[in-house]
């Protein structure tokens, strides 16, 4: 009997509505040049890890997090668009670099209202920045719940 390579999934990083990357109001993300993934229009500001792994970096401003997953994926979680310009206002990191995280662990809290008040989009992007490791990936769109709903189904190469 043949064993099909195992299909795995990344779970939603926030509650809200998952949309294709192409709808993200930022060319670099929308074009897919930085990696494959999916975005969420968040309805709440609790941001969770989509996968088991280690926090590899957190921007000083707390708006972007990277997780190196136990199975070798490089994941970027970027809260809001152009939010680097807020200089940290509205972002509260709940983890530190080097922390081991499980799927669904809270990694940050974001004040969505503060982001909107600054005139910025709250669309939160989750990217796999080493898509060369993937045999396939299928975004799952629509209403999602953080740490519960599948957001990308993927299969690793080899």
């Amino acid at each position, binding site marked *: 009997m043949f064993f099909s390579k195992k299909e795995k999934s990344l779970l939603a990083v926030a509650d809200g509505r998952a949309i294709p990357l192409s709808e993200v109001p930022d060319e*670099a993300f929308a074009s897919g040049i*930085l990696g494959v993934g999916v975005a969420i229009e968040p309805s709440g500001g609790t941001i969770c890890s989509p996968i088991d792994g280690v926090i590899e*970096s957190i*921007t000083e401003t707390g708006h*972007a997090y*990277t997780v190196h997953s136990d199975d070798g994926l490089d994941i*970027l979680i970027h809260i809001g668009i152009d939010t680097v310009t807020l200089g940290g206002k509205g972002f509260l990191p709940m983890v530190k670099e080097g922390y081991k995280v499980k799927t669904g662990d809270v990694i940050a809290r974001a004040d969505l209202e503060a982001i909107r008040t600054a005139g910025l989009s709250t669309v939160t992007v989750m*990217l796999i920045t*080493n898509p060369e490791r993937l045999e396939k990936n299928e975004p799952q769109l629509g209403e999602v719940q953080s740490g519960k709903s599948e957001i990308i189904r993927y299969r690793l190469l080899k």
Partner: protein
Amino acid sequence: MKQFTYCIEDPNGMHARPAGMLATFAKRFDSDIRVLANGKTADGKRLLSLMSLGAVHGTELTFCITGKDEETAAARIESFCRAGMKDTEEKKED
């Protein structure tokens, strides 16, 4: 090995987008690309690794490029940095 330094001009430092653009650009080359800053060494082809340098506005990055296409890689990556982490040689291939 080819080496050059570049001082970050982006007022927001090495945040996600420039790090991602640099990693994507660097992946075009066979050479091994190391980026040194703040006493840390990053893999120039990995967004995550570049972001973990914690490089801010004014941080000096040292690029160490080793491999058979190191000459071309160093010249093109340096131009890429000096253009403000923008790909000015973009050619669409799809």
